[in-house]
């Protein structure tokens, strides 16, 4: 980064950004380079890494195809289910809710997102465990229902965990919507349903895309939800990575998977940005 150090102004600017640049370089750029180097290395006999230059780790990726398959199916499906639940809520908050309660209702959506995902996922473990909902079902005659440790439980956890993140960007884009457009549409004789499909929905698409992209990307790296609600039976890439780094200590293979994961994330991001540009100008998202 070329900074004009010869002027006083330039020096002040450099001093202001220096700590952040140093931090980003040492703890983001360098680690990424290290991870790339590891991914073309070999596993040392006692675990860990030894230097090499081979693409064997990448060729070995199919060995973890189940993790990739689960992630690449459940992440988009999960975010689509989130969308289906989130859209009516965002619509209600932005268009229907009375202004008096709007702020409170919006806060009630945002707050769970900032509280521990571990605790929130644990709550479902508690609910779906044998003494929770299955126990209640047992009492009304449905015996031996297993919910925990199934893909359904993971999907439930996903929707629960990421619903707020889907509602917010859609809410923001609907809130900016000019009410006069809706009135104009009604004045021109459109029924509420056709106003929704020809005016409201298209104008909220940027928010929908942002939500889908955010949730999908976060889900691609998810570990806790499949671990706690999938019980090791519904394995995500995140779970494979924890296994490879902390249990079987195959660091080069783990690095190759992590590099692949980043490539997938970037790919999803690029697609989302392309679509967003096509729909309209991008908008800032209120995450807080």
């Amino acid at each position, binding site marked *: 980064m*070329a*900074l004009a150090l010869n002027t006083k102004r330039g020096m*002040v*600017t450099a*001093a*202001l*950004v220096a*700590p*952040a*640049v140093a*931090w*980003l370089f*040492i*703890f*983001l*750029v*360098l*680690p*990424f*380079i*290290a*991870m790339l180097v*590891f991914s073309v290395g070999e596993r040392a006999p006692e675990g860990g*890494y030894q230097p090499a230059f081979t693409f064997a780790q990448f060729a070995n990726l199919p060995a973890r195809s189940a993790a990739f398959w689960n992630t690449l199916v459940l992440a988009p499906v999960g975010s689509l289910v989130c969308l289906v*639940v989130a859209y*009516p*809520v965002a619509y*209600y908050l932005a268009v229907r809710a009375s202004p008096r309660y709007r702020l409170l209702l919006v806060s*009630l959506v*945002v*707050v*769970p997102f*900032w*509280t*521990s995902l*571990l*605790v*929130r996922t*644990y*709550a479902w473990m*508690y*609910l779906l465990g044998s*003494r929770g909902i299955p*126990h209640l079902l047992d009492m009304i005659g449905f015996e031996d229902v297993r919910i925990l440790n199934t893909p359904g439980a993971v999907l439930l956890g996903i929707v*629960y965990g990421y*619903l707020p993140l889907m509602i917010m960007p859609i809410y923001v884009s609907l809130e900016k919507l000019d009410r006069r457009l809706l009135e104009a549409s009604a004045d021109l004789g459109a029924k509420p349903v056709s106003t929704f499909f020809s005016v409201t929905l298209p104008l909220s698409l940027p928010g929908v895309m942002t939500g889908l992209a955010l949730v999908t990307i976060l889900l*691609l*790296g998810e*570990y806790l939800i499949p671990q706690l609600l999938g019980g090791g039976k519904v394995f995500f*890439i995140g779970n494979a*990575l924890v296994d490879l780094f*902390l249990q079987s200590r195959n*660091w080069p293979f783990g*690095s190759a998977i*992590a590099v692949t*994961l*980043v490539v997938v994330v970037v790919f999803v*991001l690029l697609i989302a940005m392309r679509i967003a540009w096509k729909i309209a100008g991008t908008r*800032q998202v209120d995450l*807080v």
Partner: protein
Amino acid sequence: MRAFISAVYLFLYAPIALVVLFSFNAGRNASEFTGFSTMWYGKALGNTFLVAALQNSLIIALTSATLAAIFGTMAALGMERLRPRSRAVLDGLFAAAIVVPGVVIGIATLVALVEVFSFMNPVLASVWPGENPPQLGLGYGSIIAAHGLFSMALVTMIVKARIASLGRDIVEASSDLYATPLTTFRLVVLPQILPSVLAGFLLSFTFSFDDFIIAFFVAGSKTTLPIYVFASIRRGVTPEINAVATLVLVASLMMILIARILMREKKPTN
């Protein structure tokens, strides 16, 4: 539609409410509430491992959020003075720090630090004058570094948005009235951005306090509260975990509420 909205709010809050309720359960049984009691809180707070984990988490969250608030605010102030190309590079790096999954951040940091340590420790040992050379290792430092990365990007994003909404007028007005740049910063800019800096600090604290996956990779032998909770969940669900979970919930709830109040913009009434 109202019924659906109510159902969604119920869905969002019922599981948490249940955990809170059962943290006050007198009995051990997770399926029936046998009476009100705070015994599990007593048990939890009497558990030395848990208290140590809580302490670690507080130290890490406080340090990483403070550093992030300071450096992030500095970066936000400096970035508007950068040339467009440098600014775009920095913007991209901050975006990467936010978008890259935590699990990858954890792995990359682990891999890089272990390499650095295995190189540095022999060097340190050879130049150390005394008997026991210090051993660099994973711990507080590595968790703070990895948490600080995300938090700094978060603070920069929030403060930058605030600066952008300020407009240049008041700064120019201040310098027209012969205030030095430093005075302008102290009397005009700082009071305006301070709420967003504080909000960034609180969100960073919450993020660090709640993070499991990054710390899981780079904690070494240190235990943070989420790591402790995760480990006890795997050993089996007990009412004690409900008590700890409730405490964690209350802590982050307070943080996020204060942050939201600080960040609330006064919107013109229609």
